[in-house]
């Protein structure tokens, strides 16, 4: 057995941090929920917007990965382990140490704010669990840490119930899949309806409950693996973009055949992850300089490898609700 490897240290770090702090990277919870404060969303409600913290975490995970890339292939696990223990005990220190680009942090907040507004404009009132908007445990599940994952899943479910949830609206493919397809077999009596905001929004647009406008005229779409092959959320983003007046271009590998951004192996093999991202970027670039992504992991991994100067945008950065009398799109 591999006794002392960086991977072991990393797995322990992710596990312990998620179990103790509720996040795979130990941060103060206000990093996760502060975006929602200006919106004054209620704390309680039967429809809960649950972000699972993924958008907010990605800038921090990105800096963590930079450290890990520097360590790839080395064996410095003892130091890592000691450092990890200190970080988990002091989330504020982690925030300072990882110091992601403020623009990235701000961007995540903007995206979530827009998603909440899009939902409200569609007539879908929703509450938000604030300090209980815990991480769903996806990474633990994907890395094989299923005992810890089971504990996390149970906790997230209880918290959502405490906030009155019967329906949960999710905003990214990984959190959607884990709640919809995996939680039911890990959480006894799991009874939440899990809907993704793209499903809500495309229905609302179709039923003309919301008018959308796009901020670019055309873009190539990058389907995330989990929407395309696990959840079959494929037509929804296309409908939303088209209703917004954005021309959608299809890359060589799209829909069910979409190509991975490389993100999932980022923690184990960062260089390989980048190479996979570069391969994907090349074929996206063949269609357009504007790339629309639908997942914060895709965004991070593709952006990190973006040497082609592509403009990579989340769908929630491209589409917004048209407020009557606010003028036409640029």
């Amino acid at each position, binding site marked *: *057995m*591999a006794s002392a*490897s960086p*991977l*072991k240290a990393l*797995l*322990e770090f992710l*596990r312990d941090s998620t179990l103790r702090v509720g996040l795979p990277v130990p941060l103060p919870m206000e990093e996760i929920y502060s975006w929602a404060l200006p919106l004054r969303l209620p704390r309680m409600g039967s429809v809960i917007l649950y972000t699972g913290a993924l958008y907010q975490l990605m800038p921090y995970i990105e800096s963590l990965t930079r450290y890990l890339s520097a360590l*790839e*292939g080395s064996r410095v696990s003892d130091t890592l382990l000691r450092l990890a223990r200190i970080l988990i005990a002091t989330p504020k220190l982690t925030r300072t140490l990882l110091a992601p680009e403020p623009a990235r942090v701000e961007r995540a907040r903007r995206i979530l704010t827009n998603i909440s507004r899009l939902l409200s404009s569609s007539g879908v009132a929703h509450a938000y669990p604030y300090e209980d908007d815990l991480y769903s445990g996806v990474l633990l599940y*994907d*890395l*094989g*840490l*299923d*005992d*810890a994952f089971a504990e996390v899943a149970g906790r997230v479910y209880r918290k959502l119930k405490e906030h009155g949830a019967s329906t949960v609206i999710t905003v990214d493919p990984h959190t959607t899949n884990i709640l919809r397809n995996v939680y039911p077999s890990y959480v006894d009596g799991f009874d939440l309806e899990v809907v993704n905001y793209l499903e809500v929004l495309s229905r609302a647009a179709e039923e003309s409950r919301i008018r959308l406008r796009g901020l670019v005229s055309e873009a190539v779409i990058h389907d995330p*693996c989990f929407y395309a*092959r*696990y959840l079959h959320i494929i037509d929804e983003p296309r409908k939303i973009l088209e209703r917004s007046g954005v021309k959608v271009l299809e890359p060589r*590998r799209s829909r*069910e*055949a979409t*190509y*991975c951004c*490389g*993100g*999932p*192996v980022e923690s*184990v*093999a960062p*260089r*390989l992850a980048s*190479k*996979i991202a570069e*391969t994907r970027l090349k074929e996206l670039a063949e269609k357009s300089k504007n790339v629309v992504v639908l997942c914060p992991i895709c965004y991070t991994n593709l952006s990190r490898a973006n040497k082609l100067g592509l403009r990579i945008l989340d769908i929630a950065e491209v589409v917004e609700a048209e407020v009557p009398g606010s003028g036409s799109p640029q």
Partner: protein
Amino acid sequence: MDPLSKALGEIRRVLDDEFFQESVKRAAGHAEEKVPDILDSHPYLKELAREVRRVKEEVISNLDYYIEEAMKSIERIGGKAYLASDASEAREIVGRIVGRGKLVVMSKSMTAEEIGLREYLESLGNEVWETDLGQLLIQLEGGKPMHSVAPAIHLSRERVASLLREKLGFEVPEGARPEDMVRMVRSFLRSKFERADVGISGANAIAAETGSIVLVENEGNIRLVTGLPPIHIALAGVEKIVPTLMDAIKVALVQAAYDGLYPPNYINVISGPSATADIEHVRVRGAHGPLQLHVVLLDNGRLEASRNQLLREQLRCIRCGRCQWECPVWQHTANLWGGPAYGGPMGVIWTAITMGVDAAAGLSMLCLGCRRCDYVCPVEIPLSRILLGLKRIYAHGLLGGQG
């Protein structure tokens, strides 16, 4: 070194190798486009794939029974059947049939690769030649096949030319074209085929009902390996057994189609040693083809896997290699990810079956879980789910059960 660190080290070396990256991606890109075309133009293939899935499932559920039936049928038609419980037993069985100081020609077989057969026969003092061009290049290079069906995709024509010069003494001129080199190899191997004492092949499928072996190919070397030498040995994993000869043919067609080579140039059906009754209607074994046919069925973890909930579905695999072509990790690593013999998503699982879970679990950590493989596998093996199961085993081991 643990298997994951070893693989990561090898992978890191090829990530910046432009030629490696480009040629693997080009080959994969062709297959990605060709296979859907083939399936669209021959709509019956998807139905055949479903039938193959069903009969494979039937055999896996009753593997002991089908092994026995297959062995009886092989003996009934004049062949000799053996069941080898592990790699070393299989090597010894083949070694005893071949002996020492013989000339042996082989057609590409992942199962032979799995048990290290060529190296073993060489160590007994035999002269052994791979006859599939790609596999011969791997033999000359001393490396590992980079894809189940296209083993030498990572070699440039310049590299091939220099291998032929250095290892075989060919006078390959600068700027030689692939067709020139193929011609040289062809005439070199012709002399080996004619004089070979033993031909060794794998099998795409074995029919329990008739004892027939079915082999699909494009180069034509398998017909020579299995037809010219006086002794033919076929080595195959026990999961290659299917109920009927019809099923075996279906496996061959599906395998070829999902690898992107359809129609296949040749399908060989071999039912016992060659025979004639043309003189006074007296049946004589051994006419133009081999006098002896030996079929070595290899267990090497397969029977145990057939009873293992996590691994059993992999035994449906027909080794078409499509999960490799489609896998984003494989497209950047080729078979450097997967284990010593096998590669790619199916490779990690085959390593688990044939070498034990510990040899493979760490490698599963490189699976993206993107499910491209699951989507294209003709026999619907849930590869990414099995790989996730292996990740669990690995993470538990790494953290001392505190996953």
